[in-house]
């Protein structure tokens, strides 16, 4: 339990630091959101009207520390103010609308990439120097160094623009209403296909290489020879013994890859006009939607921390050496 408490307190402090950081950034950004908003709408506006608008957006000229505490409070009440870009929607609502899509996108991609990457990594290590390895490893290597932008653009060009196999935007057919129906699910799958594949392609290489290296690290271990000597089948030795143990460092690597996952999903969402939080963040940045940026960074940080925490827990679960009966 001590371990968990320690991790939890780390995450709490990390969150505070990150939150403070998030607070600082938009306040240092040049440009005034109201002006940008009005410039975009093409109006010439009187200073009084402008100030009145600013006030409705919650831009009070309070001292910094008051703003800061109000901001910290907002974390707990989940009240990030009103979005400028989506005025008069509260940021929290905007985010709540977008979050499921990002979760779907990243979750599906993570699942696909991690399982395929890990599986191929196991096979590549097991048959190292053989065909699987010779093909999969260099491919993984190449994929690992391809930016998400490139994959997304190529996917968009070849599969959506040249050959209209997949749609270029949306999370589902706009003509449909969200419902628990096959039709809707199929539409979500169809629209999500390219984004998920893009993101998976970007991630899979890293997982493959990590797993392969971990596996190779395990291969010389005596307990594997022992397992084999015990007359266990090849598959059992490979998965229940070698892969199971090699998975541990892979899980740590998983935590480290969340950054890439979030970054990748941001790009993917922008390129495929996918209505997730990454896309929102980009819009927020371009439109100087401070409340949105702030809320955005905050939940992204929170998501990172939760993901890391989940990995910590998984690690404890996977490694009995940490438990101590």
């Amino acid at each position, binding site marked *: 339990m001590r371990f968990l408490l320690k991790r939890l307190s780390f995450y709490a402090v990390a969150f505070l630091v990150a939150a403070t950081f998030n607070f600082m950034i938009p306040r240092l950004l040049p440009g005034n959101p109201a002006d940008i908003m009005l410039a975009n709408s093409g109006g010439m506006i009187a200073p009084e009207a402008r100030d009145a608008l600013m006030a409705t957006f919650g831009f009070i000229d309070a001292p910094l520390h008051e703003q800061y505490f109000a901001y910290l409070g907002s974390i707990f009440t989940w009240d990030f103010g009103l979005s400028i870009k989506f005025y*008069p929607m509260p940021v929290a609502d905007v985010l709540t609308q977008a979050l499921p899509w990002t979760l779907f996108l990243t979750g599906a991609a993570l699942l696909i990439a991690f399982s395929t990457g890990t599986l191929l990594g196991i096979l590549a290590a097991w048959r190292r120097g053989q065909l699987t390895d010779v093909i999969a490893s260099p491919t993984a290597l190449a994929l690992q160094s391809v930016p998400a932008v490139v994959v997304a653009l190529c996917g968009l060009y070849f599969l959506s623009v040249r050959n209209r196999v997949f749609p270029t935007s949306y999370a589902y057919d706009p003509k449909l209403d969200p419902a628990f129906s096959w039709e809707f699910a199929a539409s979500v799958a169809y629209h999500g296909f390219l984004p998920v594949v893009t993101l998976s392609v970007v991630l899979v290489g890293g997982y493959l290489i990590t797993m392969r290296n971990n596996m190779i690290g395990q291969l010389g271990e005596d307990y594997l020879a022992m397992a084999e000597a015990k007359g266990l089948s090849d598959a059992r030795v490979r998965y229940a013994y070698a892969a199971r143990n090699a998975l541990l460092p892979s899980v740590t690597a998983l935590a480290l890859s969340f950054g890439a996952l979030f970054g990748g999903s941001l790009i993917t969402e922008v390129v495929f006009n996918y209505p997730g939080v990454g896309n929102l963040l980009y819009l927020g940045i371009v439109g100087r939607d401070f409340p949105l940026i702030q809320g955005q960074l905050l939940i992204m940080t929170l998501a990172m921390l939760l993901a890391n925490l989940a990995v910590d827990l998984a690690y404890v679960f996977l490694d009995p050496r940490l438990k101590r009966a």
Partner: protein
Amino acid sequence: EETVLSALPEQVTAWVENFNPFNQTTTAPSVLHFMYEPLIIFNALDGGKPVYRLATGHDYSEDLSSITVTLREGVEWSDGEAFDADDVVTSFELALGNPALDSVGMAQMLSGVEKIDAQTVRFNLSTPSSQAMYQIVRVPIVPDHIWSKIDDPVTFTNPDPVGSGPLTEIRRFTPQEYIQCRNDNYWDAESLHVDCMRFPQIANNDQALAAASNGELDWMGSFLPDIENTYVAKDPEHHSYWLPGGSLVAFYMNFEAPEEGDRAAFNNVDFRRAVSMAFDREAMVEIAGYGYPTINQYPSGLGRAFHSWNNPEVDEKFGAFTQYDLDGARALLAEAGFKDIDGDGFVETPEGAQIDLEVIVPNGWTDWVNSCQIAVEGLNAVGIRANVSTPESAVWTEKLINGDYDMAINSVRVGATPFNQYLDSLHESNQAKSRFAASRYYNAELSGLLDAFTQTSDTEKQMAIMSDVQEIVGADMPLVTVFNNPRWYQYNTKRFTGFFNADNPVANPVVHKTNPARLLHLLALRPVE
């Protein structure tokens, strides 16, 4: 069978359920005009002639200090209530009483709104002006019986809109699409042949192009690259476009530039003319703008749309200064004493001060960035040291307003007459107050002429005043105009006909929410068969 028109008035990442017509930013783009009918539509393509909608007439008082507007009889709101002067008064009081709703600036323009009788309203102006009605009609007219009960009209999202326009019923609303349908009580129902408008959410040009070339959109206004190939060629029979000239694009020079050399140069009219001659306007239009903008080589910056106002003498006298002529520019510079003294390949002022121009352009406004690069190529070619810089648009705006720049590309809205563009950009009283009047050019004579323009409603007199204005601007060249932005407009005749185009230039055809004439356009459309 219902007729549904798919339109793309603007690119967004998600529709926001906001039908407050006073909101200038996130309101659904079909609220103004389609849901809330304007009083009058001034048709810029028809010399600014009024088309009466909720109003049936307007009269300036003799001294131009007030306007009396008569309202149409027999108009009903979509909930069946009758429309009358109370609605108009309430609407203006909302704007006057809530600065956040007053995006048109009524507070400065009006001293009050009076109900004369059920069908008559009088607007009292703070300062006499013959131009006031153009602004007044921009205020949306909302029903008194609903809006007088709203506690906070600023944050009110108007979830169940009651309007006077042709399409008031929100049939379906999702962040990715919404459909707005016919008002059963519409007063002008016989003109209306479109049952519903569908607004798909589209986030960027690429997606707009994809949807448009697929034939999914009937009426839109997007930048489509290489339009002949990417759009028209996909269905030559039905896909078409028309890009009439819009806002004026000009290079602004800061007469109070921070560096001494730059400042001196900008205050020298020959230098300004040389700059203008160094600009390859054609390349800007053809390459940076894909051929979509309308080139503007009027020395007065008038623009082709206002050709009927043109003073040909000005063209004759100063026309050479808007032609691309590098040698001419060099000669002009040399003549005016701009020489390369230190041998770095770039000229200095006659006093020997360095000239080093930074041309600012908002990051991301690609056609402008490219125009600036073409401009700088020309400047460098004639020996003026210049380079481009791309601050964020917010910073760019700030710099323009604060005068913290050398040269900038910028645009000015055009109105129903040439008056607006001159007023916004060159009137003394506006200088340094907005980004449109950023050049800090003070000319009392010009300002006097513009003031006089507002004091008369006599067209003859207005023409004469405009001629003089053009004379001054042409001679002084305070701005280097390069082209007029296109008004983005594409249409598909597969399902509807009657679209405005160059052969049928009834009114501004754009579907964007800033164009009131789009209502006329909507009413002109007929479903196929």
